[in-house]
């Protein structure tokens, strides 16, 4: 601003009239003139897995506004606060613009061109693999890329680099749901649809604070009521009186991690009251006898005592479920983030199976996923299974895939490589020396931060590919590859209800950033496997078309989809010649993906949580999210309206505990566990948290909840237990 301008501003001659003028957009109507685009680009939101249809307003090559897509079946034009300003993530400060290389540990980053970056990447990777074996190079990816990129990356890592040690941050998120589905139904794949949230008689939300984390699902849940109809009865099971609990008809403020008891207890009530679907149990499930025999101990009085819930309340919830025509059981991280996550999922599936609530309108056990395309990586990613939900262990699956890819069956791995927590352990034990991190920020998102940082220090080579730099993880990298983000590339996302939506490019990536798809193909080219694995591929559509063939006949069947068809509207898989318009539900025929085509009922006994409060660390720490931010805040922390709405972390503490510690609202405290401490965080004294418990949102690197958390993981899914550990609080004087 020139001196003349600032003087005229100061005197009051210039009130920036033009900047604040209004105009009329032909579609949206009256809005600030600067927000009116030249064109709208239809795409899908890039934050969470709800998968809202969104349009980006582009003006002179810049994204200037967004609006909800009124025609999209997920959101009817609604968006959450993050979605409503998502265009700002594109122009946010701190984008990664150029490849950056550190010449030797401890040196500063130097800008290099892509050729040098690729050469360095391939040289380091090859050297490490030559010295320490192929599996000494590991890859950690994300749930944020498009499906076409996941598909490309899976082949590149497993067949190009020949390392099985490849996993995604989806293991920090949905692995327990994946493993639970596989065990109960023989395959991954959420069986229900969002429309079931509207049409169910009863919706049970277990460890799912959708009002904060999936606000548009809260809209779907209330939609019928908003239209003046009855709408479902809502049961919320959560230790914290969340925003979602405020909308509940029955709120069960459960004692943390006593969910195994509650779910078994409800199963027992359902069975003993005759509120089960005997016919469905007989025809479509196995393991009923064993389950029945295992439930003797779960008297209502006992469950009430262990869960600290009123017996009448538990019974009321069971009756609501048992006497409803349709019940949707939906859950998220409260269930998955547990050392018993997979088995807890199996217990939820048990309830759905016992009551025959699967494959019908309003009926399903439904995991609500985290990231926008966690589902895409589950389907195609080649991490926890072979693409198309094929099993590593199955020779038939391997043969089929090898044939589709025109490679030898022996080139495919016969078992899964290391999962995320085991990769970290592998680095510490010296088995893994090189790591490629793509689109994730482990320094903030992984539990037990100190351990992770120690591990990353031991790496000989760390390459981080991200849309943003610096992030706490890119800062410690040896090589940073700048990637395009949402709005700058093309592909598809699959949301929690298996709905595949088109993702489109609105603007060019900044600086020299490239789409992840192009980066993967460039690397493939340089290691000489592009022709073999990606013959004639030029654009994401080529990957999609191959994936359609690879998924054909599988549960996640894309064969009936095409980019042209998706341009008209999103489609739910399975989508093929028989069901060209896709499928709202799985297992409607009562046949499952198991060998005997029956769903399996599981007997689960509660195991003790890995850490419980004791006199040294008297509080139980629960971690989670807040509506204003997305994950590690690399995006939302730079969007001023969101950052201002929730600018710093806090620790929620019950007024009674606060009083005992002499804490008042807004006081500064330290929070410490056996693994680390947050040296300064504000106390938020509130009754939404129970006595003996505290809650910290994990988004903030400045006061990182994951300095405190445990990295103990579910033995089946390997998903860490972010939700409970023991901490102590100390008041700070200033």
């Amino acid at each position, binding site marked *: 601003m020139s001196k003349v301008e600032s003087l005229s501003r100061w005197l009051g001659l210039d009130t920036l009239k033009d900047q604040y003028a209004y105009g009329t957009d032909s579609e949206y109507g009256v809005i600030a003139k600067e927000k009116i685009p030249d064109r709208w680009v239809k795409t899908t939101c890039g934050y969470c897995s709800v998968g809202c249809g969104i349009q980006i307003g582009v003006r002179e090559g810049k994204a200037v506004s967004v609006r909800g897509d009124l025609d999209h079946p997920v959101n009817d034009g609604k968006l959450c606060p993050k979605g409503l300003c998502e265009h700002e993530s594109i122009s946010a400060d701190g984008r990664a613009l150029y490849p950056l290389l550190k010449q030797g540990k401890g040196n500063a980053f130097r800008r290099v061109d892509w050729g040098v970056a690729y050469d360095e990447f391939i040289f380091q990777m090859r050297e490490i693999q030559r010295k320490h074996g192929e599996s000494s190079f590991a890859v950690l990816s994300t749930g944020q890329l498009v499906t076409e990129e996941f598909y490309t990356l899976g082949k590149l890592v497993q067949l190009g680099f020949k390392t099985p040690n490849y996993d995604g941050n989806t293991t920090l998120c949905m692995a327990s749901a994946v493993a639970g589905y596989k065990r109960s139904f023989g395959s991954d794949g959420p069986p229900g649809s969002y429309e079931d949230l509207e049409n169910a008689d009863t919706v049970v939300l277990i460890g799912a604070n959708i009002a904060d984390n999936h606000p548009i699902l809260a809209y779907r849940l209330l939609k019928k009521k908003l239209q003046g109809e009855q*709408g479902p009865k809502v049961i919320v099971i959560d230790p914290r009186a969340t925003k979602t609990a405020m909308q509940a008809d029955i709120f069960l403020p459960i004692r943390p991690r006593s969910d195994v008891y509650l779910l078994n207890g409800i199963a027992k009530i359902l069975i003993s009251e005759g509120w089960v679907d005997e016919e469905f149990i007989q025809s479509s499930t196995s393991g009923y006898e064993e389950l029945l025999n295992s439930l003797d101990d779960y008297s209502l009085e006992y469950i009430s005592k262990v869960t600290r819930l009123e017996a009448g309340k538990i019974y009321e919830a069971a009756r609501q479920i048992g006497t409803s025509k349709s019940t949707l059981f939906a859950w998220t991280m409260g269930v998955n983030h547990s050392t018993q996550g997979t088995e807890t999922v199996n217990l939820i599936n048990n309830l759905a199976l016992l009551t025959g609530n699967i494959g019908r309108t309003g009926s399903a056990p439904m995991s609500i996923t985290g990231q926008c395309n966690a589902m895409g990586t589950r389907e195609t990613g080649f991490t926890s299974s072979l693409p198309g939900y094929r099993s590593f262990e199955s020779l038939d699956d391997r043969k089929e895939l090898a044939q589709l890819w025109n490679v030898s069956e022996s080139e495919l791995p016969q078992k899964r490589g290391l999962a995320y927590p085991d990769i970290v352990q592998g680095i510490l034990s010296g088995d893994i020396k090189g790591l490629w991190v793509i689109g994730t920020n482990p320094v903030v998102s992984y539990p037990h931060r100190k351990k992770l940082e120690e591990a990353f220090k031991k790496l000989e080579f760390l390459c981080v590919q991200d849309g943003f730099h610096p992030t706490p993880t890119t800062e410690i990298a040896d090589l940073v590859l700048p990637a395009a983000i949402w709005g700058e590339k093309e592909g598809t996302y699959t949301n929690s209800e298996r709905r595949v939506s088109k993702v489109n490019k609105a603007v060019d990536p900044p600086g020299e950033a490239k789409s992840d798809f192009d980066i993967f193909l460039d690397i493939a080219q340089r290691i000489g496997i592009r022709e073999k694995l990606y013959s004639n591929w030029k654009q994401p559509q080529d990957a999609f078309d191959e994936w359609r063939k690879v998924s054909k006949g599988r549960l996640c069947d894309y064969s009936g989809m095409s980019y042209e068809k998706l341009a008209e509207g999103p489609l739910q898989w399975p989508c093929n010649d028989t069901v060209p318009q896709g499928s709202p539900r799985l297992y409607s025929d009562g046949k499952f993906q198991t060998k005997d085509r029956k769903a399996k009922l599981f007997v689960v006994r509660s195991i003790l949580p890995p850490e419980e409060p004791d006199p040294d660390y008297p509080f139980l720490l629960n971690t989670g999210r807040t509506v204003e931010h997305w994950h590690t805040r690399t995006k939302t922390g730079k969007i001023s309206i969101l950052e201002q709405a929730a600018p710093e972390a806090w620790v929620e503490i019950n007024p009674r505990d606060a009083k005992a510690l002499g804490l008042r609202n807004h006081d500064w405290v330290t929070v410490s566990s056996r693994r680390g401490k947050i040296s300064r965080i504000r106390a938020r004294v509130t009754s939404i948290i129970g006595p003996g418990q505290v809650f910290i949102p994990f988004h903030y690197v400045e006061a990182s909840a994951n300095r405190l958390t445990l990295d103990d993981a579910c033995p089946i899914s390997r998903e860490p237990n972010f939700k409970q550990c023991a901490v102590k609080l100390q008041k700070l004087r200033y």
Partner: protein
Amino acid sequence: MSSSSSELDFQSVPVLEELKSFDPGSHVQCERSVPTLSEGENYRFHFDMTRCIGCRCCEVACNEQNNNPSEVTWRRVGEIEGGSYPHVARLHLSMSCNHCLEPSCLEGCPVDAYTKLANGVVDHDAETCIGCQYCTWNCPYGVPQFNPERRVVTKCNLCVDRLEEGQLPACVNACPTEAIQVESFKVEEWRKKIDQADAPGVPPADLTGSTTRITLPKELPETFGAEAVEQLQPEAAHWSLVIFLVLSQWSVGLFMAVPAFFDAQDSVLSFWILGAWFLGGVSLQAALFHLGRPIHAIRAIKAWRHSWLSREVIAFSLFGGMGFLQLAYSLLSTPSGWLFQSLSGLTVLFGLAGILSSVGIYRIPARPAWDSSRTLIQFLLVPLNLASFTAALLGTYLQLPATTITLLVIIGISACVIQAFSLLPLVIEGLRDRESLLYGTACLLMGKFKRLFWLRMALFLIAMSLAALTWVVASSTLKVSFMGGALLLSLSAEILSRYLFFVTVVPRNMPGNFFTTSRVH
């Protein structure tokens, strides 16, 4: 705190009856299109607290709609919490402008930048606005906000341009649970049902005739958390206004004290008038710095019919003009005679009118700590205190008659004593009752500003003592020094008073949340 002790508390977790009443199903289908207005009808917001999930979409959508920077939020989501775990209710309250029937923003605006449109919308014109920010004080909901980039105030206009095109306001459009709606209402009927705009933590609707209808849960928890005092943030100090108030009032006092020098030499009297006029001039200049658009200051006289601010500007302008004439007269001619005395009297009259207008400005329900006769007393005592001591100082130096000086010192000391203790009733009343509107101010005075509070009192008392000592000491040098000291300390105390006046005011406001407890400036 062992886990077993907390176990006991959970044993008897009863049914969450309160929450059962949070049933959004009990409402009729909401209006998804802009209603048409019949005769006698206006538009208004309806906010349904049972539906709001606190997602803050409305805040973001509003800023996108209006291209506002993040520090200006026309719509804000507050939190109110009641009950104890697990019988807790965390309610959210999304509010923007209430488009009041008797808008206090409009009432106080000195330039008539506000219009109450025929459809009920309280509209504000940024081009007319001079950025005096008086409306931001007057609104009990903290609605109008100063945009530092534009240097004017801006506010929600219910997206009136959209309404006129049959389009819903941005916040209504964006709300995922349709908790915010726009509806039509009959104005005269609403006056009888205005309590439907009341909600916990929200200033009473009848203050300004708020039109936002609020649907509350059928059963509210019995108790809501009182204002978290530890979160209270001081308001802006407004240094330009601190200087303006103290100097203008001092200046008026000096003109009042002119008769004390009728017996002195003409040059002394001229010098005195010059000093008085100069102070007044400086104070008016200082006030200009308060404006976002000082170049348009002259517009401020426009709304003299209803705005105390306009009246203040007019009165002090006339005061300055009369003072100038008085000064000119004293320099060009012998400062005596009926013309001089008339000018002198008129100057004082306009000066007092100015001070009373200043009082009128601050006597506003939206700022309870100001809205008291204390403001009148404090403002009127400033000239008595400062001018008496100034006159006594000069009088002592010039060895004017002892009776005059004694009278001046008595006036000054009395003013000092009253000023010294003038904040005590506020603090006592405020601290006695947590529900009191003065509670926040009292807490700030006894908390964050405790030292300044006591320093202020001490300064007045020491000033008074020094003034009294002039009666005891014989040496004229000492007398002059003590009088000078008394003046200096009084002046500091008055400046400190005005500073505390501004920073500890604690405006009425809509409920804030953990991060925004006070008005955003």
